[in-house]
Every structure is written in structure tokens, then in C-alpha cells.
């Protein structure tokens, strides 16, 4: 059993030898071996591949090895290290040209020949050109495209390779995966043409697939890309952490795409599945045809109540509204070890305060990280859509929302109608979130509530350069050792948060008016630092923590009335 990782691998030539050759697909939760034998900052897919290969090399007797190409810097090193660590397996790296002309094909053909000979020697099998020729000639252009189910959103994926898990996630969320043009996605290799020797003609076909970003031919992607994107209702542009090739194309496409584009970065571990789900679902919510606002049904004398619950990492918030969309009550409690218990507690507290029973409530909508773990909710909606709804309700003029919560931060752009038009989220790390501020406040021996007001007394500019929570903490400690004023350090911390937030805001286009939500919006120091960088006033809700829950309640009310 052989594996491959790059679409330019001559997999058909191996199949022609009767070898089973499969796409290498690691599913790991961490990289203990790769971090010690490679480097933590290498491409996360490659680190996952190292984990899987070393496990297979040690435990799986059917595992023969991997056929690599020199597709990127990380893979080259993956080959170097694996072939050194497990010399008895078959590791071969095909030097892959970056051009698609006949000279490149000739060069690649001779490398393929060398690779096949090496495998013949390793396995005792023989390669027959005739077998390959038969196999390749079986490939045909597909018949007419499959007709899509009406009403179902059609999603296309481009960018760096995606896992089967992500493909499934898109389909489970109710969309149709129209195409997967990531680097090892849908493969169609037409039969070789011309009078050239078979391997050269085959190499030519291989090199002339939709060029990946490492190819010089990638200049030709552009004219192919836009018509491709147009076929779908929305595009997931996938990138992998520490694989930077595709971020270049994303940077170029993001403002020109004919259909909405979701930038999705994954880190090759199973740990980010939750976040991936939030982003995909929010994207589909954004794409779904918006319901026409019909005249609100009068509910007569009958009172109606809807509750929105936002189950966040730090706090669980609830908002109760009535049929007139008036906020009757809200609650904010600290999220405990189990999100469901906090959700139950907050619900009980709202009901008690309003003198209502559970049966009086027409609808409960959950949102936030824990939204799927709240069994009594009638429906769950991502916090992105909910924040958009809530902020638009409070301030109809808002076009850009910055939400900084306990463990993540997001920038959301709304269109004139108040619908989500684009959004970006921070990565998995705590830099620039509420957790960062909590850690800094602790180091400064201030409470989180004091941090903001104290910083406003700052007179000297002190810089915190590191964005990483751990290292920023040690920077703060050194500043304390240098006898810097607490106020100045606190202001530096807030500027660091503002810098990080500005990067997010820039990605959504910096369109005023701006509104800030989430617990961090209660900190006047952060608001001051941000307003200075934006050159604009921020709109701050009276209760910035409940905007998500309010949005959830409003969306629930829309369903009903």
C-alpha cells in the first residue's frame, strides 16, 4: 500500500502496476512527534502527515511508503526527515517542474521513470506502459453536469487541500459540494495525446491540470478562476496554517470574487472542528435567501415571548423580548465548567425575574460556542449572524461590528439592509481577546474592571510588542521591573489589542459606522485606543455583552411573527 500527497503524482502509473495508492489523510489532535523531529512552525498538514507516516511505518505491515513531489518547502523537509528515520520504507521525492511546457514534461517524465524503476526494485513488481495506456484511455470527460437540487445552496471549495471531514461538514450543514478544486480535490486526467512517448505525454497531462499555486503557470489560474467561482452560490477559500501559498490568491481574489467568499483556515488537527462548523454554518446562513418581510402578523391580545441565549466561553447571556420586540429582561452569568448548566441557570433566572413559566415562551434560540449543547433550544444560529442582527437593531447605521469576546474576536461587515456581508475571525490563539486582557490585568495586579479606567491616566507611551499572551505577560513583567507606571503599561496593553483588532477590521474593509460588542467593549481603555487608530467614534451598546443573545431572540421572533 502506497500513499501520495500531491495531485501531480503519477498515481495512474502505480495503479497500472496493480498497487493500491491512496491520498494521505492524517487526522490527529496534536503533533508530538512532528514538533520534535521537524519544527512547530511547519505546515500543519505536513506535521499531520509526519505523525501518520511514522505511526504507519512503525505499526502497519502493509504500509510500503509515500511518493512525494517537491511540491513545497515543507514537503521537501518531510521527505528528508522520514527517509532518514525509516530507511526501510519506500520514500521517493519526484522533482516537480513549475512549468507545463513540453520541455518540462520531458524532464518530469524522466523523473517519473526513475521513480517507477526505484519502486520496481523495492517491490519486485514490473511497470508496463501498455497497462498505463489502457488505464489512461479509459478516462473521459464527464457527461453533463449533475443537476443540482433546487433550493439547496451550492458550495465550491478552492485553495489548499481539504480533509474529508470538511467535505462532509459542508454537506451535513445542508449544502451541496459543487466542486472541490483544492490541490488534491476532483481529479480528471484526460488520455494523453500526440506522438510523444507515453510517459512524456502522461507527464504533460499531469503538469497541465489546473495549476496549483506553486507553479509558474499559476498566472493562468486567474482567467480560469472567476468563471469557476461563478458556478457556485458561495465559495469556501481554504488555507492551512503555515501553508502560505494560497493566501496570495485569496488576497488577490477576495475583493473581486463574483460570489461571496469565506476564508477558512484550518490547522490540520481535529481540535478546530468546532470552529470550522461555526464558520461554515454562519456562511450558509449568510447565503440563504433572506425571507421577505411580510407584514407582521398581529398577535391580537396574545402576549408572546422569545428568549435568545448566547453560550460563550466566558459568559452565558440571555435576552427576553416580547412580540413588540421590546427587551423585557436580560441576564449575564459566568460560564461554568458545563455550558448546559450555565444555560439552564440563565434561563431559570430570566423566567423567574419576569414572572414567567417555561411554557409561556414561544421560542428559544441558542447561539455562541455552546449553542449546539443546549437541548431545550428550538434552533441554533451562529453568533456571527446573531451579532449582526442585534447590532443592526440597536444601531441601524452600523456597517462594521467588532466583537471581542473571551476567546475569540471577529469583525463583521453588514450591508445596508443589516445582513451579514462578510466576516473574519481570529485564529485559535488567545492573542487580542478577553483572555489576553485578563492575563495582563492579573500581571498588573488589577481587576479586569480597573484595567480600562487606570490606562486612561497614562502619560508615557510604553510598547508591548508581543501579541502572544504568554510572551506579552513576560514583557509586562519586565516593564514593571523597569518601574514603568501601571497606567502606561495598561495603555500599552490596550494598544496591542487595538493593533490586532485593526488587522481584522482592515480585512472587512473598514466601513463606518463602527460598533463594538462583547465583554471587552466595556473597557474604556480599549475603546480609546481603537478610536485613535480608526479616527472614528465607536458605537457602544449599553450592554455590549448581550448583543448576540438579543440578535438570537430577534431572529427567533422573525420566525414567529
Amino acid at each position, binding site marked *: 500500500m502506497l500513499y501520495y500527497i500531491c495531485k501531480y503524482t503519477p498515481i495512474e502509473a502505480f495503479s497500472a502496476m496493480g498497487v493500491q495508492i491512496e491520498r494521505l489523510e492524517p487526522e490527529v489532535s496534536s503533533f508530538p512527534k512532528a514538533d520534535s523531529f521537524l519544527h512547530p512552525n511547519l505546515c500543519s498538514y505536513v506535521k499531520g502527515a509526519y505523525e501518520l507516516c511514522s505511526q504507519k511505518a512503525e505499526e502497519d505491515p502493509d504500509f510500503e511508503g509515500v511518493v512525494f513531489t517537491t511540491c513545497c*518547502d515543507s514537503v*521537501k523537509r518531510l521527505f528528508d526527515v522520514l527517509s532518514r528515520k525509516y530507511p526501510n520504507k519506500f520514500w521517493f521525492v519526484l522533482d516537480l*517542474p513549475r512549468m507545463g511546457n513540453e520541455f518540462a514534461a520531458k*524532464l518530469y517524465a524522466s523523473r517519473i521513470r526513475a521513480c517507477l524503476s526505484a519502486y520496481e526494485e523495492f517491490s519486485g513488481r514490473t511497470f508496463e506502459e501498455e497497462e498505463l495506456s489502457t488505464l489512461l484511455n479509459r478516462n473521459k470527460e464527464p457527461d453533463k453536469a449533475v443537476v443540482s437540487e433546487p433550493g439547496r445552496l451550492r458550495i465550491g471549495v478552492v485553495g489548499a487541500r481539504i480533509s474529508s471531514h470538511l467535505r462532509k461538514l459542508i454537506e451535513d450543514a445542508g449544502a451541496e459540494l459543487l466542486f472541490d478544486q483544492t490541490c488534491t480535490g476532483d481529479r480528471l486526467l484526460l488520455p494523453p495525446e500526440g506522438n510523444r512517448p507515453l510517459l512524456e505525454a502522461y507527464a504533460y497531462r499531469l503538469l497541465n491540470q489546473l495549476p496549483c499555486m*506553486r507553479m509558474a503557470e499559476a*498566472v493562468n489560474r486567474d482567467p480560469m478562476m472567476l468563471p469557476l467561482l461563478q458556478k457556485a452560490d458561495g465559495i469556501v477559500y481554504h488555507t492551512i496554517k503555515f501553508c*502560505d501559498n494560497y493566501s*496570495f490568491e485569496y488576497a488577490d481574489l477576495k475583493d473581486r470574487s463574483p460570489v461571496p467568499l469565506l476564508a477558512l483556515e484550518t490547522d490540520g488537527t481535529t481540535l478546530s472542528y468546532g470552529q470550522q462548523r461555526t464558520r461554515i454554518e454562519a456562511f450558509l446562513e449568510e447565503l440563504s435567501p433572506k425571507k421577505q418581510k411580510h407584514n407582521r402578523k398581529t398577535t391580537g391580545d396574545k402576549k408572546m415571548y422569545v428568549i435568545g441565549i448566547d453560550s460563550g466561553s466566558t459568559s452565558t447571556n440571555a435576552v427576553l423580548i416580547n412580540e413588540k420586540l421590546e427587551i423585557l429582561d436580560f441576564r449575564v452569568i459566568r460560564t461554568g465548567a458545563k455550558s448546559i448548566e450555565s444555560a439552564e441557570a440563565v434561563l431559570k433566572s430570566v423566567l423567574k425575574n419576569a414572572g414567567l413559566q417555561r411554557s409561556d415562551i414561544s421560542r428559544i434560540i441558542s447561539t455562541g460556542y455552546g449553542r449546539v449543547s443546549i437541548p431545550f433550544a428550538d434552533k441554533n444560529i451562529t453568533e456571527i449572524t446573531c451579532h449582526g442582527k442585534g447590532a443592526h437593531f440597536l444601531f441601524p447605521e452600523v456597517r462594521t461590528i467588532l466583537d471581542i469576546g473571551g476567546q475569540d474576536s471577529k469583525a463583521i461587515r453588514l450591508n445596508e439592509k443589516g445582513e451579514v456581508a462578510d466576516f473574519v475571525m481570529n485564529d485559535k490563539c488567545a492573542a487580542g481577546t478577553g483572555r489576553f486582557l485578563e492575563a495582563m490585568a492579573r500581571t498588573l495586579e488589577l481587576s479586569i474592571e480597573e484595567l480600562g479606567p487606570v490606562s486612561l491616566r497614562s502619560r508615557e507611551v510604553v510598547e508591548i*510588542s508581543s501579541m502572544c499572551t504568554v510572551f506579552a505577560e513576560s514583557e509586562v513583567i519586565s516593564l514593571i521591573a523597569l518601574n514603568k507606571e501601571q497606567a502606561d503599561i495598561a495603555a500599552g496593553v490596550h494598544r496591542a489589542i487595538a493593533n490586532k483588532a485593526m488587522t481584522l477590521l482592515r480585512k472587512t474593509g473598514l466601513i463606518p459606522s463602527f460598533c463594538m460588542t462583547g465583554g471587552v467593549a466595556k473597557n474604556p481603555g480599549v475603546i480609546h485606543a481603537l478610536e485613535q487608530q480608526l479616527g472614528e467614534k465607536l458605537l457602544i451598546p449599553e450592554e455590549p455583552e448581550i448583543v448576540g443573545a438579543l440578535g438570537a431572540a430577534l431572529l427567533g421572533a422573525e420566525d414567529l411573527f
Partner: protein
Amino acid sequence: MDLVKTYGNIIRKNLETHPVAARRMINVGLSLENLRVQAFSDKRMPKASKELNSLAVNKIREGLKTPEKTAWTNLFTPVELLQCFDLNCLSVEAVSSFFSGFTIEDSFIRYGEGKGLAPSLCSYHKCFLGSFFSGVLPVPKLAVTASTACDANFNTFRLAGKEARLPVFYLDIPGIRSEEAVDYVVRQLHALLGSLEKLTHRKFDIDLLREILQRENESKRLYLQFLKKKAKKAWPTTLTLQMYELFATHLSIGTEESLHFFRSLCKEIDHMPDFHGKRLFWVHLIPFYHPVLKDALNFSDAFQLQGMEMNIDNTKPLDLKDPIRSLARKMIDNLYNRPFEYKEKLVLKAVQHTNADGVIHFCHWGCKQSIGGVMLLKEAMKKAGIPFLILDGDGIDRTNDTPGQIKTRLEAFLEMIR
């Protein structure tokens, strides 16, 4: 008050609103820097190093002032061909390093990230693209990039080239040493020459190229000689100067100025006293801004930097009979174009050649080709009994730095080999 930082802050304020004014201020800053080094620099700095300083600063100044006579390149572009057309070569690494020198790298990096570039991308490339997108870095005549060493080479130029409607030439350098591979590169070089002739309205003169290659051969011979002498002699240097050598060994290799510098090096070192401290060999880029490393290594009597492997990535003499073919061979034979094993051998050889007591490997953020092999290099050094230190950090981005960690690791290592 730190003057450079203050000046940097003034430039920073102009970046987004007045990019052209910011560029002018950078140019003035570069002239001042030239003056400062000539007149007021550290007394310990050798004269040849001042020469090197001017060479580097002038190259950047020209690139900013006369973009119409400039080509964007990377460190592995065959600059010899561009010199035949009187083009000044400016590389991604050089441009970004200078912006970092002005302490404005982070603004450009954030600008690039705001455009959608990955935060994990090499900061040299992010800074370069950010400076271009913000309008501070002017559009040159053309760009020539080689695939050697780094994935970002093609992508950075493709993105900038598209936005600026700039002719970009891509050289695909195979990772296999064969005559077929040389033919493949020769063909590309001929095509490039054809385009250069059209773009500059000049005829290519092969004898001019021969002269350039001859100076290049002489330069490389002198440089190896200098490194050999440095195995014994003291040569007071700084992290920045060590990086500046890349201008002489790569971007300006083959020019009169560069050859003159190598001659000065070899002459001046003969008059230096012997060095009695510990000698260090550096692998990969140097974070020249780094306060901890500067403190420990600049003009130090205890520790001397013997060289870095990037400066000797290809020291073989070029055959003047067939200059184009030898340039193709030079690119294919480059250290970064070959299996990692070759790097292990080269570093071992360099350690012997320069009499180094230890090796420091700097893992620059985003540079996969180097960091991915660092454990293999470590094993090879361990086998040979050479102390080896790994530092993780960022070559130019101060906000992506971990000073505390670097300090502890470096000090422990220096205590260990002392």
C-alpha cells in the same frame, strides 16, 4: 531618546496617507546613514566594512530613487545577466531588512496581512508586499525571480506584478543535477535575455557577461581566502554587517564595487591581531535588530561571528567558455536547490574552514525550507561533536519576537562553549 525610532515614527505616520513623502524621508534617512557610518561609526569598525555599508545603502537608495533602472529579484536571481543591461537589483530580503532598520517593518507587515496575506507567511515577503501595496515602494522596470529555496518567491512577485502590471520573469530551477536539467534552465535564460533586450532596447553582450563572471570568480576566491584568514584573525563585526555581506556575495556579485570590497577585506584582515575568544558560525538569516543578540555579539571580544552559510551557498568558479551554461549550472548547484544532506556537509566544512567553536541556527518565522531540516542539522553537528544552538524568532518583525527566550537560550549556550 532613540533617534532612529523617532524618525521611524515620523515615517510611519505618513505611510498610509502620504506614501511618496514617506519614501522621500526614507531616502533622506539612507543618506544620513551613509554619512553617519563614514564619519561617526564605531572606531572598531574595519574600513572594508564601511565600504560594505555604502554598497548596501546605495543599492537601496538607487532602487527607491530610480525605479525605472531597477529590477526586483530574490537572492538567487542571476543578477549577472541584469547587470549586462545596467539594471540595479533589489531583492525582497534587502528591501524588507532596510524597512526593519527604520523600525517601520511592522506597519507594512500589518498592511500586508490586512490585504489577506497569511500571518504565518515569511515576514520579509509580507513586509515587501505591504510596502508595495501602501505605495511606498515604487514599481520597478521588471522583476526576475528564481524558484530556488523559497515557495514565496513566485507568489510574491506574481501578486505584486499583477497589481503593478509589471513584467515578471520566472526561472524554474530543477532540483536534479543532470545535463537535461541544465538544458532546461539554459533555455529559460535565453528567453529571459531576449525579453531583456526588448525591454531595455539594448543588445546583450556576452563578453560583458564574461567580464562580470570573471570578477565574480575572483570575488569568491578572495572571500574564501578571507574566511580562512578569519579562522585566526580578529574581525570586529556586527549582525547588520554580516547580513550586508549578502549584498556583496549575491545582489552585487560581479560588479567592480563588490570585487573592490573583497579585495579590501583580504588586505585589511592581514593587519588585524589574532582573536582569542570563541568563534561562532551562523546558519540562516540573522535578526540584526535583536537587542539581546546585538548586546552579546556586536564588536565582542569574547565571541566572533565567522560567517553564515547563505554567503557561501555556491563558491565554485564559473566556466567562462560557456557563460550562460555555467550560470544555469550555478543555479542548479546552489545549496538551497539540493537535498538537505548537502547543507549538513557544507556547514560542517564551513565550521572547519573558519575554525568555529559552535553553530547557531536561526529559525526564521515562516521559512519552512530551513526550519524543517533543523533537527537533521542538529544530529549531524552532534555526531561531529560541534555545539549547536537553535534560536526561534523573526528575522525582521519586532512584534513577533520572544526576547526572553532568546536571551536564556543564547546565554546558556555561550556559557556552555566559553
